[in-house]
């Protein structure tokens, strides 16, 4: 990553779009506090995330910044039923007034799952889409301020993708959650983002609304991206 700077406002949905090697995954790892920057700072709600040292501060961070990753299988321990991964959020939330079991069922319904179809199952018994929805259900319980979704739908079938994408926009619409969406797919970013940041070889080369990026790209890399993306309503002229 080379001199990357950007801000995300509360309730804003931004996408980091880039191909492999662009630095987008490194960026998300740094924000999730999994990788330390060589220089520069990352601040969440005004606090430098690497200044957080004691467990109370770290808990505060993990409660408010949540990651959803590409492989819907990798986040699960295959030896445990999926219930475990949902109930784990209560460790972060601490004591809750309502009955945990009904909170969990509500969250599952919010993400379009039938609780009786997924609870009590093992990860391998569910589809990729269902596993990913369960991870997002955790966000409905936690209601973090910021979600980092790194290629959350690239391993999901095309026809189910949009349903999962909408869950992220719903979180933003209903709870003011900010989302940093990382993807190589310009179409996905275009559909859901307020702002798109285009990354290339470790730098942000262009930033704008989805319309700006597609109608008026300025950087040569963005221009090339726009020309090479296969579209539905327009055919390549040079074919």
């Amino acid at each position, binding site marked *: 990553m080379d001199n990357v700077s950007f801000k995300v406002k509360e309730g804003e949905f931004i996408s980091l779009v880039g191909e492999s090697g662009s630095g987008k995954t490194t960026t998300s790892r740094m924000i999730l506090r999994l990788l330390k920057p060589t220089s520069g700072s990352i601040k969440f709600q005004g606090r430098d995330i690497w200044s957080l040292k004691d467990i109370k501060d770290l808990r505060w961070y993990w409660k408010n910044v949540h990651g959803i990753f590409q492989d819907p299988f990798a986040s699960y321990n295959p030896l445990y039923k999926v219930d475990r991964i949902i109930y784990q959020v209560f460790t972060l939330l601490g004591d809750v007034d309502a009955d945990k079991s009904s909170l969990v069922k509500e969250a599952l319904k919010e993400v379009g799952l039938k609780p009786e179809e997924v609870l009590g199952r093992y990860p391998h018994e569910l589809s990729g889409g269902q596993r990913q929805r369960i991870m997002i259900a955790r966000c409905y319980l936690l209601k973090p301020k910021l979600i980092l979704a790194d290629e959350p739908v690239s391993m999901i079938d*095309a026809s189910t*993708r*949009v349903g999962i*994408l909408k869950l992220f926009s719903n979180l933003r619409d209903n709870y003011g959650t900010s989302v940093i969406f990382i993807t190589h797919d310009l179409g996905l970013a*275009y559909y859901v983002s307020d702002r798109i940041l285009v990354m290339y070889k470790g730098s942000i080369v262009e930033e704008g609304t989805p319309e700006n990026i597609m109608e008026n790209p300025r950087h040569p890399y963005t221009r090339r991206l726009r020309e*090479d993306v296969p579209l539905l309503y327009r055919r390549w002229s040079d074919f």
Partner: protein
Amino acid sequence: MALLEAEHVKAYYLVREGYVKAVDGVSLSVERGVILGLAGESGCGKSTLMNALMMNIRPPLRLLSGSIILDNRRISDMQRDKIRKEVWGVLVSLVPQSALNALMPTKKIIDFVKDVFRHHSGLSEFDIASLAKKRFEELNLPTEALSLYPHELSGGMRQRVVIAISTLLNPKLLIVDEPTSALDVSTQKQVLKLLVELRRAKIIESMIFVTHDLAVLRQIADVIAIMYAGKIVEYSSTDNILFKPKHPYTYGLVNAVLTPEPEVRRREVTPIAGEPPNLLSPPSGCRFHPRCPFTIPICREVEPPLIDSEDGWKVACHLVTSERIR
């Protein structure tokens, strides 16, 4: 006559629990000079169908029934040895999904070429090598690539090299299975350009392009067949399928496409509810009925046949058929 004529092909996997009906009564024809896009989601049987169409059938896969006629030859009746010598590479070539990573890392590209064509048509090693060199030049691929190891080539270059080698003996039909899914968009366009060029240069006659990406098919396919749970559910020109789909599944699939276009953003993009069925025990009647918002009683009981709805436009749907009769 069509280049490929497949009728009532049934190819099942025999597993401990029974038969997985991956291809369950598929009839498909590929006309000469046509690029046919085969679209469907993972698990619908498209890769199995490709293997069946070129008679690459090994246990646990079994060809239960059906006939496959390629370039006027009934290949479904041929023995494997004959197919290996006279059909593969010569009449039909398949670039499978894993091709990018299937090259032996310890062999140079040219050695791979020699291995592949060693058993073919009595060409000497020298002949094969010069054929490869000439073909690479013809396709604007760097001939230096022939003396490199696979890992020394980028993903996109590897894919183009594999495609060039697969078509060295000018097979009439080229089948490519998700050739660009792992590539970035610019590299993808390069590979697609190469594929289209193969037809223009008459190195191949027709192509079957298997993918889930409908936007790619918009750019290169002449006709599209939609596959669901082991069956073809709709078949027509690219424009018809993408802009006037008749089958509810096709409609759902097209509606879920997300390209960076204002028309898509404006559209109410809706996902298809539910999941594709288990092919060990698919649903009764129409396999799509559990997820279909338009079911009528007959859908749960009788499988809809794939029949002409309009001139050459085939749909397997009771609702569409009954509307036509009315």
